């Protein structure tokens, strides 16, 4: 009843946003979708290439592999960080806020170059290692997958912290006390009580991080140095370097469909969390 009567006014209030999203995203995307079936000639030829082209396939596979690794590492790190943030002392909480949320406001580009400054051949790590006499020549720390992963994890951790924090905040302290009172060790309480109770947050964080990581462009482009190309970068190359707009468009459409599917999963999961995970 209440929802119904509030529907139209709510829509009116949201209209500017909806219109903006329509013009800024939906219309251009439909244009891209159109290219994918018209350029260079009408037909599904570009989608056949998408499935057949080993280069495109390897980019997709590499993207999945990197994104999976990034997601696992980012969510695991975020879990530890969030645990301290939610349950730590005042000092620890302040420290985490500074370390996590201040970089959040710094541009992606700046952060990627920050990693370069740290890891490149004449970066801080290599010069220090050499100055200490630990290595003879510079180590290849950038332009490879590990550096892309490090950069992406760094960017994505804050996105995992928020859903994890909301899950951890709803854990009833008495449940942990009850477990302790029954003689459970801290490790046991964590594995059989705390972790299961925060699992909805872990799944939410995993989906969010994975979806975000799929579309990463700046970080892999700078830290990967063109060697380990991910899907978003491939789209860029097809669009702007080797004019092959049809294929670039088809890859974009495939990526959007994939992300939409994952978002659908996320929404479904969030709904489950609202109705079933309340207690």
């Amino acid at each position: 009843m209440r929802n119904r009567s509030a529907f139209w006014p709510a829509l009116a209030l949201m209209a500017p946003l909806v219109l903006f999203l329509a013009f800024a995203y939906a219309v251009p995307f439909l244009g891209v979708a159109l290219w994918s079936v018209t350029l260079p000639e009408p037909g599904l030829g570009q989608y056949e290439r998408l499935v057949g082209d080993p280069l495109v396939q390897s980019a997709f596979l590499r993207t999945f592999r990197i994104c999976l690794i990034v997601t696992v590492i980012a969510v695991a790190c975020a879990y530890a960080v969030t645990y301290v943030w939610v349950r730590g002392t005042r000092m620890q909480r302040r420290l985490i806020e500074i370390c996590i949320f201040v970089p959040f406001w710094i541009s992606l580009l700046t952060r990627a170059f920050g990693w370069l400054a740290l890891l490149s051949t004449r970066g801080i790590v290599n010069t220090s290692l050499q100055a200490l006499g630990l290595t003879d020549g510079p180590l290849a720390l950038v332009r490879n997958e590990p550096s892309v992963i490090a950069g992406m994890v760094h960017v994505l951790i804050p996105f995992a912290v928020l859903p994890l924090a909301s899950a951890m905040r709803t854990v009833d302290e008495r449940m942990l006390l009850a477990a302790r009172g029954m003689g459970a060790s801290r490790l046991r309480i964590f594995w059989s009580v705390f972790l299961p109770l925060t699992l909805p947050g872990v799944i939410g964080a995993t989906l969010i991080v994975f979806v975000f990581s799929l579309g990463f462009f700046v970080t892999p482009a700078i830290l990967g140095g063109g060697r380990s190309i991910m899907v978003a970068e491939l789209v860029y190359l097809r669009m702007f370097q080797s004019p092959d707009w049809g294929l670039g468009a088809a890859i974009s459409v495939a990526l959007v469909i994939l992300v939409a599917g994952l978002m659908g999963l996320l929404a479904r999961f969030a709904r489950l969390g609202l109705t079933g995970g309340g207690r």
Partner: protein
Amino acid sequence: MSKRAVGLQVIGIGKSFGHFTALKDITLDIAPGEFLTLLGPSGSGKTTFLMVLAGFQAASEGRLLSDGVDITGSRAEDRSFGMVFQGYALFPHKSVAQNIAFPLQVRGIAREDIARRVDAIIARVGLAGHENKRPAQLSGGQQQRVALARALVFEPPVLLLDEPFSALDKHLRGRMQEEVARLHGEFGTTFVFVTHDQSEALSLSSRIAIFNHGRLLQVGAPRDIYERPSSRFVAEFLGEINLLPVGGIGHCARGTSGTFEDARLTAPRHDHLDGSAVLAVRPEHMSVSAEPPAEGNGVPARLVGTTYLGSAMRLAFATRSGTPLTVTLPSVAAGHILDRGPDFWVNWSFDNGFLLPEQS
């Protein structure tokens, strides 16, 4: 009595949160196998005391002994007292059987043993058929039973219960009270039980400890506390009571007496009073008559209101000086008194009143 029940000796326990003193100098002996109820107004420190007993919070001062062994510094997981929390604190992601099995798994007990003991206690608390449900699928009373079973299954030496029935309706509450009393008898574990509900405290406990502002005011058997409260706070907190200010305290052959309005009222002897005091009488210990009583205490008073309570009737009187008096009479007895005029005598025997210091 179970051989594992222990007695606790609480010696001068205090607990402060910053500048706030939540518990002050609590000294109390809890006998093995007894059913001790902690009763007191909200914020009086009952939960805090339970937390200190369980080891979830460290005492700021004082010592705690378990059968004479100092456990002040030992951790909650080593004390392993059973605890039923307000709101039960069941694990929502585990089934009834898994919840109950948890403390046994923690102890590394063999799988078959766990299954056997869980089955046995599920039958004992009347949860058969609900083993595989999640807590959210159970009624309030059933959740309560799971919490009790989970706390009792590992046969803890002490079971602590923090307002376990506060979320239940009155009918269910009564049934669960009986059940807890039965489980206490069967397990023989020492129970320390917190409640707001005085009738619950009176009917369940072997002893009651009254708390106020973080202090332990009085400990005793329910009957002693109800009939011989040591302070005005305890008298007023437990049930209804009439308080008559009396002056000119003096001792006589029958006890101690004092003057209220024009009447000289007598109560059992009380030696530690000076000048003035209050005379306390329970409403059910008073009777009403048209004439002054031949024996015992009597005060003239005017009937100002009546309340019908079913089996009993509550009569509200005011004395000449305006002091309110409440008398409860069985309904059958009250009927024919009320037909007469508004002026009566309110009477009680010398033994049924007791004197209390004016300030306490």
